[in-house]
């Protein structure tokens, strides 16, 4: 296959379209050029329709201009060309029974491309063990050492972001390390469903079945997404049985115990319980600290333990959010060129920790200021002009201007129908006083803190 016309056509398109149009719609297309037929392959139906509707005419015109003597046809279709082999191990030999996979039956699939989809960084070494995940790690290690025998299927369940996927990849990576030509496939249940739907649409369901039933190990993540998808459950049920019968290893994860997943067929639930269901719980403080330190170590960056404790104490929900907070501190340090200290981390995570997503309203400001000065909210709206009322009122006006987007007339209206010039005067007065009166400055900062947190 050679591409001669297309590069020239692309050059012309660069002159006609914006960078954004080119990069969004044209460059992602894959191109096949054979004789006088140029086939553009779009990743999905939407892109295909868009390109057809908006660019096909232009492309045809350019191709025609480039090749005035001959006939050039343009075809647009959904599809992709064969992908590079990087994440793919091509299994070309006939699979033979393998001592590692106990009763593996010979499979007559001489040339199947296996995409294992494993993330090489998820290994047992990079997994931080604690009380909450000890059992799951031990069981996973056992399975990786003796696939197809102990614990089949291995069913790991627990809340989101607790390390189930990491352990799953670790098993897959170890299986491949011990036996590089093992046919190991990791995929998310959504992907399994998506592939099956495509196979049904393209009438390739037999190839789909053959592919999955020829594996040495099938690792499916988040099987709760099978819930309510009857046809996928049916297909998975048969794949599951075929794999178990042939001694292949099955590893599944779910966010809860199988019987608790609504919309999952009873026969599947019961089969999932055949092997070993192990629970992963939320990591305790020490494990969260160790996880943060491990991440810093992997990134090769110094990360004081007091910072790790600070973050770990505040982010308790799951490891993914813990990682998010860690990445935010590190990205900020990297960008500003500062080193990570406790104060730095507190500042970097200020809004995250303080949950500033509360919307500040003028009413809220008035209430906070009134409480702070032990006066009534209605005093702020009144015409009283004693110092004990006017200062808090002006502070509340200044805070309203600072913390909300309301116009000055709107703020004036919210303060008992005052004119916008009164608000402006109040704001200026507070700016002046903050420079000359420490008490006012302190009060202002305190209230800012209260309202922002």
């Amino acid at each position: 296959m050679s591409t001669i016309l297309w590069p020239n056509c692309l050059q012309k398109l660069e002159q006609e379209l914006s960078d954004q149009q080119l990069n969004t719609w044209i460059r992602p297309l894959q191109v096949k050029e054979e004789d006088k037929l140029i086939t553009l392959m779009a990743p999905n139906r939407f892109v295909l329709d868009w390109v057809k509707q908006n660019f096909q005419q232009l492309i045809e015109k350019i191709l025609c201009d480039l090749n005035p003597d001959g006939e050039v046809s343009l075809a647009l279709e959904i599809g992709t060309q064969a992908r590079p082999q990087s994440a793919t191990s091509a299994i070309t030999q006939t699979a033979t029974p393998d001592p590692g996979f106990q009763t593996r039956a010979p499979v007559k699939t001489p040339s199947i491309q296996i995409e294992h989809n494993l993330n090489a960084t998820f290994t047992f070494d990079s997994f931080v063990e604690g009380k909450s995940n000890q059992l799951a790690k031990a069981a996973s290690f056992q399975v990786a050492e003796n696939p197809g025998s102990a614990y089949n299927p291995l069913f790991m369940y627990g809340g989101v972001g607790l390390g189930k996927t990491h352990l799953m990849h670790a098993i897959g990576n170890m299986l491949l390390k011990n036996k590089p030509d093992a046919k190991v496939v990791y995929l998310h249940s959504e992907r399994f469903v998506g592939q099956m739907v495509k196979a049904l649409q393209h009438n390739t369901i037999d190839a789909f079945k053959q592919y999955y039933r020829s594996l040495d190990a099938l690792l499916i993540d988040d099987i709760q997404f099978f819930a309510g998808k009857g046809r996928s459950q049916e297909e998975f049920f048969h794949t599951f049985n075929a794999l178990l019968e042939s001694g292949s290893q099955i590893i599944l994860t779910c966010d809860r115990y199988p019987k608790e997943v609504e919309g999952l067929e009873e026969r599947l639930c019961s089969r999932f319980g055949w092997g070993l269901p192990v629970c992963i719980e939320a990591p305790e403080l020490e494990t969260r600290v160790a996880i943060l330190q491990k991440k810093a170590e992997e990134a090769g960056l110094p990360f004081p333990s007091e910072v790790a404790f600070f973050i770990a104490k505040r982010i308790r929900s799951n490891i993914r959010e813990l990682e998010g907070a860690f990445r935010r501190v590190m990205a900020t340090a990297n960008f500003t060129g500062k080193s990570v200290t406790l104060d730095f981390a507190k500042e970097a995570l200020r809004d995250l920790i303080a949950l500033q997503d509360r919307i500040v309203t003028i009413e809220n400001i008035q209430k906070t200021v009134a409480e702070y000065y032990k006066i009534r909210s209605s005093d702020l709206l009144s015409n009283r002009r004693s110092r004990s009322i006017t200062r808090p009122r002006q502070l509340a006006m200044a805070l309203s201007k600072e913390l909300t987007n309301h116009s000055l007339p709107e703020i004036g209206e919210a303060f008992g129908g005052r004119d916008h010039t009164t608000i402006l005067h109040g704001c200026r007065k507070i700016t002046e006083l903050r420079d000359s009166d420490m008490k006012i400055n302190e009060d202002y900062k305190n209230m800012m803190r209260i309202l922002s947190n």
Partner: protein
Amino acid sequence: MPRFNQLPLNFEVRDVFTFDTLVTGVNTVSVGIIQQCALAEGEKQVYIWSPPAGGKSHLLQAACNLAAKNQRKVCYLPADQIIHQPVQILDGIEQLDLVCLDDVDQLAQSRLWEEALFDLINRMRETGNSLLLAAATSPDAMQVQLPDLRSRLAWGPVFQLQSLSDAEKYEALRLRANQRGLELPENVAEYLMRHYPRDLFGLFERLEVLDTASMAMQRKLTVPFVKSVLEK
């Protein structure tokens, strides 16, 4: 040749939205990290949030423009437009160098879209390409049905875009007027800031109205003219 703004679906990235036309104010760090992300440096997934009209779309489109300028394949998807499409619109986009998804919280209303977004984040993670997400709330506060999605939204750094100070809004208004070739006298800018809501989006919208009116009527921007146009 078809123009983007004539298309039934408008995923147009406006050329004027660049980092040069962005006043960062207190958001220097988050904007810098997004800029790095657009250039495939640093973080692979960044989530920003602020109440509506906080400048998120400008930032995302600036990232798109910067990435496109650097020959990266990009895609800007505003949720309010894609939500009317089948979820398959997200198929294969993980192959692009940068995907910017705006108003993610609007997708969170639908289970189907939540699953599609969840799957997209997983795929982006696998390909290692960059993903920028923007929403009106933090992942914690978002009304999502899928806890799996919520934790994935917070996988990378999450930043709240802080509101600009009045001085910074002045600067942003001045920059925007300059860009449009519009002379914005200081007293007019002050008038706009003092008499109308001071959110950036609203200020820019008003400036656009004034620009159109000043062109149509061949008038310079003065306070009486602004009053007559905006208070019609």
